[in-house]
């Protein structure tokens, strides 16, 4: 069971009259799991409160309690200091609580205006939805947050950043007093993040309370006023951000000291492993040429939509290029499917690991051996002993702790699922590993572990391609960085050229 050592924790100002919304002594238990034990959280008008914690700390559960999706087992929710249970999501919305999720929960087939006013659209005298008024009000709202979006566009035609703007406009349209932002910047480029910060400032100025959930410390220190730290479902600390240092926050979060320094590496440029020449696609990218060497970490930086992932998917055989050639180890190869890529020692760990990574209904060992089925079978029949040996070897190598290899991956925590996905690819004994946003949505403790691990892979002679939108990560990990913009390589940077400003300048084309 969880240790109950943190009994006398700071409780926050739960009786403080100025908190718009507060949780007092909230507990929540799921079958076999204590998700939250006696946590408190206060949100004040005009203040941004950062909720910090590792994966599995209970952040998502808190969000679901605040939005009426889950009911707490104990404790109370206070609105303006008065107890107000949220038995349904509608009750939470009625109290002015709204959440902007990691993956926006909007409707692709509806227009921007319809999305903003869904459920509370202006009516005409017949009681029907007044389309004209809806569009006009949506336009006014969007321009009030500085978004030049056509309200009549279909939502599915927008990028992720614009979808966030629509979600925020929706929050404003229902007169939200409390806005919960669950990792809003995870999928945004640097420029879009800046715009989001400005928006948060304007929400603050309007006196709304904001709960900001993020893994990125620079972001927390930039926009948050208060912080609350959870660990393993318990409140570890809270207070004003001005009174705390980054190191202290990290320590509270993980319960131990974590160096945020990137692993020291001896860059060793070995023989070329992968040479790509003139790769092109009719719409996504053009004229991509580069060479990757043994033991090297090559960073791919660019804004969202620069064509990096699209190129990697093509290199991995998911989509076909219209022109170009690939050499692996000096031998020209033709990659027409992911199976060809794996056979040639190229593996791709996709960005969307939930969707593209693991088969949740299959046990751990079957997930790990999935791309290696050819190697562990003879004549189409699986050799189970061989399969278990392979799975055990790589779970041990990645320090994956689970009750048994038979455990279904869907029952593992996010961090362990990630380990399964990486183990699966390493088990194919690749020569080139492509990591697409390897630490996106990963908490800081696991992040350092992923970075360590990348360095280790490179040291073992693997060639690593890292697609990342996080500048510190790109600079901290890469030996060399290729910057892409609008589907083309615009710069290849090494040594002293590896500066944040240089990267941003090339990526944005200024």
């Amino acid at each position, binding site marked *: 069971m969880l240790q109950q050592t943190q009994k006398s924790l700071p409780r926050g100002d739960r009786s403080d009259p100025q908190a718009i919304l507060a949780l007092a002594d909230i507990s929540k238990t799921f079958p076999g799991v204590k998700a939250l034990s006696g946590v408190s959280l206060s949100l004040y008008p005009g203040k941004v409160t950062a909720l910090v914690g590792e994966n599995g700390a209970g952040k998502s559960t808190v969000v679901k309690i605040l939005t009426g999706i889950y009911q707490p087992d104990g404790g109370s929710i206070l609105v303006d200091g008065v107890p107000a249970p949220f038995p349904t999501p509608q009750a939470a919305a009625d109290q002015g609580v709204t959440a902007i999720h990691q993956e926006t929960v909007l409707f692709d087939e509806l227009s921007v205006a319809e999305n903003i006013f869904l459920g509370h659209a202006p009516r005409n005298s017949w009681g029907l939805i007044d389309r004209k008024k809806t569009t006009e009000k949506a336009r006014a709202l969007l321009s009030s947050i500085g978004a030049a979006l056509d309200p009549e566009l279909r939502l599915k035609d927008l990028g992720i950043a614009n979808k966030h703007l629509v979600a925020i406009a929706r929050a404003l349209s229902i007169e939200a007093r409390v806005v919960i932002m669950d990792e809003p910047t995870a999928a945004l480029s640097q420029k879009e993040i800046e715009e989001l910060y400005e928006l948060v400032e304007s929400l603050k100025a309007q006196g709304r309370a904001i709960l900001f959930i993020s893994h990125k410390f620079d972001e927390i220190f930039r926009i948050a006023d208060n912080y609350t730290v959870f660990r*393993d479902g318990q409140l570890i600390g809270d207070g004003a951000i001005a009174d705390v240092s980054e190191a202290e926050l990290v320590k509270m979060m993980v319960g131990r000291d974590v160096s945020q320094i990137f692993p020291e590496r001896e860059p060793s440029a070995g023989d070329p492993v992968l040479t790509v020449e003139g790769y092109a696609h009719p719409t996504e990218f053009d004229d991509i040429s580069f060479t990757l060497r043994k033991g090297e970490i090559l960073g791919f930086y660019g804004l969202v939509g620069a064509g990096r992932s699209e190129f990697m998917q093509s290199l991995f055989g998911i989509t076909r290029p219209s022109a170009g050639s690939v050499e692996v180890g000096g031998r020209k190869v033709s990659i027409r499917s992911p199976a060809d890529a794996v056979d040639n020692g190229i593996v*791709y760990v996709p960005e969307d690991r939930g969707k593209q990574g693991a088969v949740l209904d299959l046990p751990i060992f079957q997930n790990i051996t999935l791309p290696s089925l050819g190697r562990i079978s003879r004549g189409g029949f699986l050799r189970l002993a061989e399969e278990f040996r392979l799975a055990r070897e790589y779970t041990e190598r990645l320090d994956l702790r689970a009750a048994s290899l038979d455990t279904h991956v869907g029952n593992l925590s996010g961090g362990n699922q990630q380990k399964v996905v990486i183990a*699966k690819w390493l088990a194919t004994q690749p020569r080139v590993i492509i990591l697409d946003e390897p630490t996106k949505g990963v908490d800081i403790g696991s992040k350092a572990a992923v970075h360590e691990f990348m360095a280790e892979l490179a040291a073992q002679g693997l060639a690593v391609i890292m697609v990342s939108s996080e500048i510190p990560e790109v600079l901290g990990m890469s030996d060399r960085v290729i910057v892409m913009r609008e589907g083309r390589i615009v710069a290849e940077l090494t040594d002293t050229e590896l500066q944040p400003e240089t990267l941003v300048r090339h990526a944005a084309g200024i």
Partner: protein
Amino acid sequence: MLKRLIASRETLLIVAILLLLILISSRFPGFIAPSNLANVFNDTSPLILLAIGQMIVILTRCIDLSVAANLALTGMVVSMVNVALPGLPIAVILGIAIGLGTILGMINGLLVWKLQIPSIVVTLGTMTIFRGVIFLISDGKWVNSHEMSPAFKAFPRAELLGLPVLSWIAIFAVIVFTVVMTRTTLGRAFYAAGGNPHAATYAGISVGRSQFWAFTISGALAGLTGYLWVSRFAVSYVDIAGGFELDVVAACVIGGVSIMGGIGTVAGALLGALFLGIIKNALPVVDISPFWQLAISGGAIIIAVALNAQANRKKGRIILKRAEQIR
């Protein structure tokens, strides 16, 4: 491990089947006599064969509505071949049935794989086409018992160690496909392609090809069943096994096969088919109108799906590491 065994869908289904048998035997003790149970199993064998194929198809997030029509077309073709060439050995007849069924299944599979048409549309179309073809080749006429050769009719009834060949074929198929699903790369590919098509693609497994093979297997089993069906009932016409595809899908769903793909076992399909088979055979003997049978199978489907949905709902909620792992 024991806990998991107790909670597994197959175990629950076995318990449900036993309860059903106890309930029936309380009103009609003769029902659970070994010879009668063997009869019920033999009677359910065609459903078992088709449910195995359907289970694999559903596993890959598809559905095969054309199985009964495939069965009827193959049945008509082999009975016409038998009328024209009565001396043809049964081995050849079996070869024709399985071969034709396989080809019909491959047509479904190719349409789903290469043209990316949703399987429900493809098989709804081929279902109608297959029935139409039967009418065309038979001119709407029946092939009757007296036209079929004695050997043709005798094969599924021939007894081997006390059980008819039809039953043995079902048992054999259960064993073969249990091995295929758990011990071969193809079986693993079915689970991966249905469980998470994106992840399967990235792992080098072609989802479309897996679906093609699923339809091919389903077609082959439907073809085999086609011969067994017409020879057992000693008649062949356009409408045989009409609507039987719904029983087959029902057997899968009752057997815990997830209609969302990725979850299902041969044992589940077998038990689902047996459950329906017992109901179908028991209702007449306990003197309940056969019309109730439809309502009862319908109720069983809904209960099974509701139970499965409940089981799945629990899964998504594990937020922290499991308590025992923390300790």
